[in-house]
């Protein structure tokens, strides 16, 4: 058992430390997601030009997430925490799909695969951390309903390379976006709950 500062053996990490770790993880996950998206975009789309205008909405777009600073500051922190959890949980299955799908793309470099695996791993850890935080802040709330917002990969012919690439492009675009939302909301929550909004 760990030796606690005050000699006891039942010490635990402070909520502030938990938040620090969560924010570091969310920041790391978002930068990996951005790099993976950019790398895929550079390698696979120059010839195919998936125009951003053709991006279809993300599987999480039905969640009522704040879209600007004012909305994000007005929302109750319990609701914002729950939104973070819903977005996080909604990526469990898609991340498994991303890891398996990227291995099927012939020219996909190992660096994209490595990032996909790393994001899947770190997202699980972030989810565990968030469950601890919520367990501290709202013990009653720590239900872990499973979110099945994602209806699985689009129904495209395995042989239709273009459609598969576009579906994957769209998924990475959504991952980059949602990982930034999670990162941003956690930074807001940390300032609000741990530093009384004076970060």
């Amino acid at each position, binding site marked *: 058992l760990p030796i606690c500062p005050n000699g006891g053996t039942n010490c635990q990490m402070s909520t502030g430390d938990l938040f620090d770790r969560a924010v570091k993880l969310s*920041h790391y996950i978002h930068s990996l997601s951005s790099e993976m998206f950019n790398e895929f975009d550079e390698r696979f789309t120059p010839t195919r030009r998936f125009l951003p205008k053709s*991006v279809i909405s993300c599987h999480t777009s039905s969640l009522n997430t704040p*879209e*600007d600073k004012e909305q994000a500051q007005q929302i109750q922190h319990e609701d914002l925490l729950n939104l973070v959890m819903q977005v996080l949980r909604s990526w469990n299955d898609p991340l498994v799909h991303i890891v398996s799908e990227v291995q099927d793309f012939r020219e996909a470099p190992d660096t994209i695969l490595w990032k996909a695996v790393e994001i899947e791993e770190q997202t699980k850890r972030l989810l565990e951390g968030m469950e601890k935080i919520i367990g501290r802040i709202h013990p009653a709330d720590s239900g872990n309903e499973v979110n099945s917002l994602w209806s699985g990969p689009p129904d495209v012919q395995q042989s239709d390379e273009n459609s598969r690439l576009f579906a994957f492009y769209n998924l990475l675009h959504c991952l980059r*976006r949602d990982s930034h939302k999670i990162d941003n909301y956690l*930074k807001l929550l940390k300032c609000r709950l741990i530093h009384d909004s004076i*970060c």
Partner: protein
Amino acid sequence: LNALSPPGKPEILKCRSYEKVTFTCWWKPGPDGGLPPTYRLLYTKENDQRVYECPDYQTSGPDSCFFDKDHTSFWILYHIYVNATNALGSNVSDIKSVDVIYIVQPHPPTNVSLKIEGHNDMLVKWLPPAMVDVHTGWLTLKYEVGVKEEKDQEWEAYSIDHQLKLKLFGLTPGGNYIVRVRCIPDSGLWSEWSDASYIQIPGGTKGTDL
């Protein structure tokens, strides 16, 4: 009269948000075709087929459109284009797709101050750029301090997470130093460098400047 023609194709130069609350886009007019053209910046938003027009052509100066906070949403794509029209016809720019999250470029840090501490140590301090709210966590900035002796070519760079100061140790006695600071949001673009600040470290042997 035959020298007159519809206006040339305008080009959207860039879009920037300085504080992750509002944003501005600038465009470059094409040739005017000999007749005074009018310009309209139009845009659609992700999953919304309606066409909107620029809410404010004034605030950010000529050939620009300012989106105030009521017209700025994050995590959605704006598809922006400019339409130039004169009496003989019109021309449209290419579409520029923008997610405001990724065009945040703050102004440089402010109030950079240098102070000698001990014999040849220096404390560098600064403040976040104006108009940027770093207290609520909506925008998180990291900083980079550039330091060099005046006689040197290369800058030494120090990355700073969120603090607003840096202490430098063991500087050259008698050395003339230049310091500058810049910042970057958690996802976005580096600011420009702050103005350079100058300081001389005490000490050093007399006549070393020959």
